[in-house]
């Protein structure tokens, strides 16, 4: 009797739950479906068809226009260079710092941790003017390096914490055995420790990849004078600034810009979710 009652109640609730969740998820992904649909229609079709997402015949020409004339091939290349560069610099410097903070006691350790913790709360709006001033004084405003270094140098305390926590947990015997074999500080790090830190490197790579790909303020103000260095979001803003009425061109350009991160996310979902969930548990 009791069993039947408990089994029956969840069923009505279950249908309601599916309906509510289904509607919610549709609202969440509809803008992306609309975007892809609009990118394959002519501008007139977008207005005429209302909510009907299927184009009569896919207009691939929109993509050709966005990729070529509108310059999104250049923006894509710039974004890839900036993202790969930022990931490389971030993994390099946060792994080194995380390693020594996690495994060694030294004079000034607390000071370094204090500085890194304090940088967590610094808002981006506060630092942008001196950053532009500094990078311009260093003569780095006319290349990708300025953007890469500025992105890699701000807000990386979380990655350092991830590495420090992981390296702290590795057994001490690893170094002792390596030292017996005659390995020095550098060789222990690069040949023993770094290969073991693969999972953390994966998480840091994924988080940094998304942050760099989606970065906006720094690429925007760094490329005021150099349109050839614009990244995808900066190029997007410039495109709709001059082609406001080109709905299908906008949709194709936005699809080109968003597709790589969305595909990337589906492949590495696990690392990403673990990374942010771990941050809150810590």
């Amino acid at each position: 009797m009791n069993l039947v009652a408990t089994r029956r109640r969840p069923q009505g609730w279950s249908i309601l739950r599916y309906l509510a969740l289904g509607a919610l998820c549709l609202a969440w992904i509809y803008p992306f479906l609309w975007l892809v649909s609009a990118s394959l229609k002519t501008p007139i079709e977008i207005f005429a068809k209302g909510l009907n997402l299927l184009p009569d015949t896919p207009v691939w020409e929109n993509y050709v226009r966005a990729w070529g004339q509108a310059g999104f091939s250049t923006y894509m290349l710039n974004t890839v260079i900036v993202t790969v560069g930022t990931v490389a610099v971030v993994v390099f410097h946060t792994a080194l710092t995380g390693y020594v903070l996690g495994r060694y006691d030294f004079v000034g350790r607390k000071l370094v941790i204090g500085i890194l913790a304090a940088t967590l709360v610094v808002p981006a709006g506060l630092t942008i003017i001196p950053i532009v001033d500094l990078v311009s004084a260093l003569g780095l405003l006319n290349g990708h390096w300025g953007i890469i270094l500025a992105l890699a140098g701000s807000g990386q305390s979380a990655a350092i914490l991830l590495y420090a926590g992981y390296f702290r947990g590795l057994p001490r015997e690893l170094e002792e055995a390596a030292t017996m074999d005659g390995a020095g500080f550098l060789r222990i790090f690069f040949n023993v420790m770094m290969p073991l830190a693969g999972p953390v490197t994966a998480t840091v790579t994924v988080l940094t990849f998304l942050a760099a790909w989606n970065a906006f303020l720094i690429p925007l103000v760094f490329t005021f004078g150099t349109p050839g260095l614009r990244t995808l979001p900066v190029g997007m803003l410039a495109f709709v600034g001059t082609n406001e009425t080109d709905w299908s061109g906008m949709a194709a350009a936005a699809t080109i810009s968003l597709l790589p991160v969305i595909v990337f996310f589906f492949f590495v979902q696990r690392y990403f979710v673990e990374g942010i969930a771990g941050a809150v548990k810590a």
Partner: protein
Amino acid sequence: MHQNVLRGAPLAKRMWADRWIYLFLLPTLVLVGAFTIYPVIASIWFSLLDWNGFERAGAFIGLGNYCELIADPLFWNAFKNTIVFLLLAVPLRVGIALVLAIVLNAHFPLVRVFRTAIFLPVVTTAAIVGVVMRYVLDPTGGPLNIALLNSGLLGQPLNFLGTAGLALYSAVGIWVWKWLGITLIYWLAALQTIPRDLYEAAALDGANAWDRFASITLPLLTPFTIIITLITVIEATNVFDLMLTLTGGGPFYATEVIDIFVYRQAFTSNVPRLGYASAAAIFFGLSFIVLASLQLIVLRKVRARRSH
């Protein structure tokens, strides 16, 4: 952790023995020094200057920028917009995500699909979402207005982003939509720390779903609530990407938050005002810290009184 073998030795000798450690710290210290610590200090100095950025250095004017700020209605407008945005967007995002997390913290078919769908906007570029949403919310051809008109919910289209009284609320809605998935993951992680046998024991004692929520889930989530709210508040002061591309601060400064005010003064006005922009950023940063500390003190007092 490795202790230095020369613990009692003179400082210089110990530091020399640890030279590899300092070498390892060097890249981070250089980068953080150049792109976070130096900029904070430089901002304080810049805020005391009258500087248009064309000249190499500005003229020192003491607290002149701050005096001007206090009398600038557009600064207070931006200040107010930031606070209104915070007060609306943070509870919405944290609250809706909690409800969703409780529903999705179970095993049933498609649960992973639902979680992934809610999470999808999080990974997309905020600045591009801002541009796209201008079109989605467009009064003449945007799908949202078409859907609302077709369903009879609206008699005539709403200009979500072009109406001064509505634009800030539309921005709040889009921001919550964009970032809800990340808060959902935080809450799911928090819910998974609650042992299941607590619920089973309560169910045996005859507690209904609401009792279980109020006397087990909520109290055990309190520490997470504070952290998640804090993270969300910090993120809610950082809406530059979305706001600049969505509305650019308009119409008539109705959505101009502090970040946009600073950006406009520093980079897009005819004569850049780097000193004035820095002063605005610092003034808001300091008031924000003061407000946050006050809030924490009040919270602690209330809780201390309750436990008595």
